[in-house]
């Protein structure tokens, strides 16, 4: 099962390497990891998606909590969160395919962020499972390059974390 762990950490150098080191040292597998500063500039939020059983997730939480730079963390199941992952896909296009791609992109809520005579770059944002489906639809056109950010997430509703 996949869990999303939201982690608030001190925003200074070396924190990410401590967290990455912890995961590799303890044999935890990271599906994705996204970091960015929060509403408080001294705090960064790291969103980590891990795949594992309850035991593993409990261990990940406890070991992360031991890091002095970790201020607070909580793990969530998918239903408790709004989740987004951003992707940019560069597709090789013939002029004749552009129309198809444009309408596909529109259905997916995508945006064309770059265009050249041979390529088209589409920006997509969705839950990561949905993003997978979109990419499958785009694959036949020939994906030249793909870049993804990893999931970021916030709790649904009135509650806030932090």
């Amino acid at each position: 099962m996949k869990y999303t762990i939201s982690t608030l950490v001190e925003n200074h150098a070396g924190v990410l390497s401590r967290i990455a080191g912890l995961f590799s040292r303890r044999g935890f597998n990271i599906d994705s990891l996204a970091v960015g500063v929060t509403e408080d500039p001294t705090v960064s939020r790291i969103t980590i998606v891990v795949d594992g059983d309850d035991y593993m997730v409990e261990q990940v939480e406890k070991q992360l909590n031991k890091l002095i730079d970790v201020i607070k963390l909580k793990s969530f199941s998918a239903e408790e969160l709004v989740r987004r992952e951003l992707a940019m896909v560069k597709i090789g296009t013939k002029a004749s395919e552009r129309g198809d791609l444009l309408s596909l992109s529109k259905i997916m809520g995508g945006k064309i962020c770059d265009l050249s005579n041979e390529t088209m770059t589409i920006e997509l944002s969705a839950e990561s499972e949905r993003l997978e489906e979109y990419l499958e639809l785009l694959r036949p056109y020939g994906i030249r390059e793909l870049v993804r950010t990893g999931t970021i997430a916030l709790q649904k509703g009135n509650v806030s974390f932090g």
Partner: protein
Amino acid sequence: MQLTGAQAMVKCLEAEGVKVIFGYPGAAICPFYDALTDSSIRHILVRQEQNAGHAASGYARITRRPAVCVATSGPGALNLLTAVATAYVDSVPLVVITGQVARSLIGKDVFQEADVTGAAEPFVKHSYLIKDIKDLPRVFKEAFYIAGTGRQGPVLIDVPVDVQNERFSFSYPDSVNIRGYKPTVKGHAGQIKKVAQAITEAQRPLIVAGGGLFATEARYRLVELAERCEIPVVTTMMGIGGIPTEHPLYYGMLGMHGKQVANRATQEADLLFVIGARLGDRAVSNPALLEGRLRVVHIDIDPAEIGKNMEANIPLVGDANVILGQLLEQVPECTHSAWRNMLDRRRAEYRPQLRQFDGCINPKLFLERLSELADPDAVVVADVGQNQIWTANHFKIREGRFLTTGGMGTMGYSLGAGIGAKLAEPERQVITVGGDGSFQMQMMELATMCQHQVPLKMVIMSNLRLGMVYELQKNNFAGNYSGVFLDGSPDIPKLAGAYGIPAERIHSMDQADAAIGRLLKADTPYLLECIVNQDESSL
């Protein structure tokens, strides 16, 4: 107060009440050594940086406060790392200070540059690289606080040499506030109640005590609880001395090299009361076999230890001493006589046959005898190998301490740790026990004890081989001995003589009492080499 960074470092140590530090200078830490001469802090020059770390570890384990070791950048700091890792797994509080190349040169692979905070990351509780001198006082304050509270451990401070030379206005903070670090001390009241009830309900309770007992001297309360509720006690290697060896409720060390009666007791108990132990593989080889068959109370100051190696039915996070105090307020007197009598019978039946080899010292009998003749509060430091197992199982602890590297099993620990322990409490007898293999990893420290007049009592069990690996190859590799013979070793008493350290060698148990007498009476360092047979077994 306008100070240089180096002067401020010394002031920080003074403010933390540091009296002794262990180290080895070099270019990148020179400003600090320069400032040190204006202080009353005593510097112990070791002969290799790793031993500065072990010495600080011995010092910290006796004083129960963070101890300080210092090294220069690059190789000096890297030599320290084995000792830092050793302290980390055994939860020993250290503040490790290393010099670093100037800030403008970091990352350029200059002379004696190493990424020490990076290299040390897996083995430290926390680390700092000071890039702004204004952070220096806060970093020192936090380092001592983090090292000495919660689950204790080493904290590393890497100080670039130009930061040591920079001037700034110094003031030492009064308090710390680290938002990501709030260790739990007191046990949760509801859980305490559950534990108290579990103890009274149990038919066959067993206390498993670990090294966590010594961080706050919880051992006296542990004995009180065991006695009040008539609960048998076993310990991990790190927990040895948590209850006197000859206490009627003590059934020995558990685990791979432990006592049979202790291991069988863990399988037959209906309640395991685990306190300050992480139940590593050497203590409980297959926890899955026990889970579900009995109830487990797990008390630890580190929540991450609970449920890591063994599932706990009643987890309880906090300081062992505080929690035992809370429990003693609630637990009524009770008895578990049938269970205890059964263990007593088993202990009486199980008498290991000690084989006597002619012309050799029997290390097990020797260590028993040594412990009987030593002061009741003597500190014994065991190295690693067969000597460690012999000492763990045969040196009887009364009011004293048993120090060893339980988690990392670092050969070459004992002399450094012994020097540190002796300097922490100069009036106390400190005895080290090692082998001729481990001795040769650290014999340079004979000079340290001479230079600084540290009257350590050293026992070396010699068999001209790496006894524990030899035994492993004999039993598990069909006697295919590989890389275990120590031919070429020096005449150890003569080597000690070269340092002016009185030393002797004995071959026979008839000589033991007199030699032990001379060892214990000496007011200088003293070395006693015991010749043991190659086929002497660990157990």
